[in-house]
């Protein structure tokens, strides 16, 4: 007979461990969104202006839009590969709640996509003329923002996981919900560049992050339940 079961915490560690291991066995798939991030931020200077002083005004917006778009690229794969090979069903039958599964997978996904983006952002920031004094705000803002985006993306990915061409629909669903993120995140960086206090914007970003982190796992697990039907 079976034992009494495995705690949710241990299950989350197992799932995160598996997902991270799978990600690192395909390192090229980890790098693609990061390269996309770099390419998109290169497009703006090419399309707009060479002068760093002019770019600096646009820099927060450009940085955040590029971060949003490259995160969206990787979000589609959050649940898709598990749904395609049948392992999502096995996860749903593992005795663990779908919420636990959604939390673990989203966190693992953020570690390899959002967190990686945050690490690369100083390179991009230099290219856009953002002064080093604004880096702390930028890094903090991007960390909170990419985490919130991962949660929103988990809801969108759960809703679109079984669909063909789901990735376009995913962007359509997630981007409007992500607009407050963009507003506060770019706003915070902008204020840091101009020297005024970015605390207000950062607090809002943090509260958005907490709010989304609390509610999104339930919405994502409800979406997965619909997808599994």
């Amino acid at each position: 007979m079976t034992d009494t079961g495995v705690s949710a915490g241990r299950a989350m560690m197992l799932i995160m461990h598996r997902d991270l291991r799978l990600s690192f066995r395909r390192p090229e798939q980890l790098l693609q969104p990061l390269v996309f991030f770099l390419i998109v931020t290169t497009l703006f200077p090419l399309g707009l202006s060479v002068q760093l002083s002019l770019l600096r005004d646009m820099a927060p917006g450009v940085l955040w839009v590029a971060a949003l778009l490259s995160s969206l690229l990787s979000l589609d794969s959050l649940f898709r590969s598990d749904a395609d090979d049948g392992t999502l069903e096995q996860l749903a039958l593992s005795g663990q709640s779908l919420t636990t599964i959604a939390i673990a997978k989203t966190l693992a996904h953020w570690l390899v996509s959002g967190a990686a983006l945050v690490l690369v952002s100083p390179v991009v920031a230099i290219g856009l003329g953002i002064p080093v004094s604004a880096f702390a705000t930028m890094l903090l803002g991007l960390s909170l923002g990419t985490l919130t985006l991962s949660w929103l993306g988990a809801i969108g990915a759960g809703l679109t996981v079984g669909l063909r061409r789901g990735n376009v629909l995913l962007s359509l669903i997630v981007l409007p919900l992500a607009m407050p993120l963009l507003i506060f995140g770019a706003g915070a960086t902008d204020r840091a560049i101009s020297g005024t206090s970015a605390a207000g914007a950062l607090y809002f970003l943090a509260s958005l992050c907490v709010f989304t982190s609390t509610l999104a796992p339930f919405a994502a697990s409800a979406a997965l339940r619909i997808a599994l039907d």
Partner: protein
Amino acid sequence: MWTWFYRLASPPHVYRVAATLTPWFLTAAVFAIGYGAIAGLVFAPPDYQQGDAFRIIYVHAPSGWISMFAYSTMAVAGAIGLIWHMKMGYAVAAAVAPIGASFTVLALVTGSLWGRPMWGTYWAWDPRLTSELILLFLYVGVMSLRPAFEDGNRGDRAAALLSIVGVVNVPIIHYSVLWWNSLHQGATVAKLGQPLMPPSMLLPLLSMMLGFMCFFGAVLCMRLRGEVLNRERQATWVREAIKS
């Protein structure tokens, strides 16, 4: 006490109720919009600042309000469908979506037309218009999600979940756009809503609001009947209803 609610789970009942309500809504809409339009467009005095251009508020404000109300209705109907497994909830949500989206477009177009005499441009990123635009994107997302599923029931449930997630975000989006706009004042000073108005201006506005609501109700009932017929097309009562 809740029997009226549980009876709404029955498609033929909903079909009949919607048929009964439609003419009432339509009559009320005609009278309210009629009074509001004549009183507002003809008799109300011109605004000292904007002249006659402000009159577009009689269409713009009600359509903006209905666009938000319709989204909430869609979310609540979807929630009823999810919680009580009532298929009629999904039918209402599906019926409301295009109506709400149309009112959103109307609000955007009238807002844009208002912008021309006010600011000299057809578009300005002021908080209300920007919020309306994002609301339109939310509508498009929900309306695109439902047909993407082959199984209609899964599509209904996914769309209901998305509209609930959206409705929670609407106040957040509204506030963040307001904050963003207050930082970037620029050339646009938003005065699309007039908080203090004399009765000669206010009464027609309220009447238009009421009229638009009744019109919304009438169109919703008509679309709902169509939705019910489509979803229940296999049932025998539908064949009877079509014959009669």
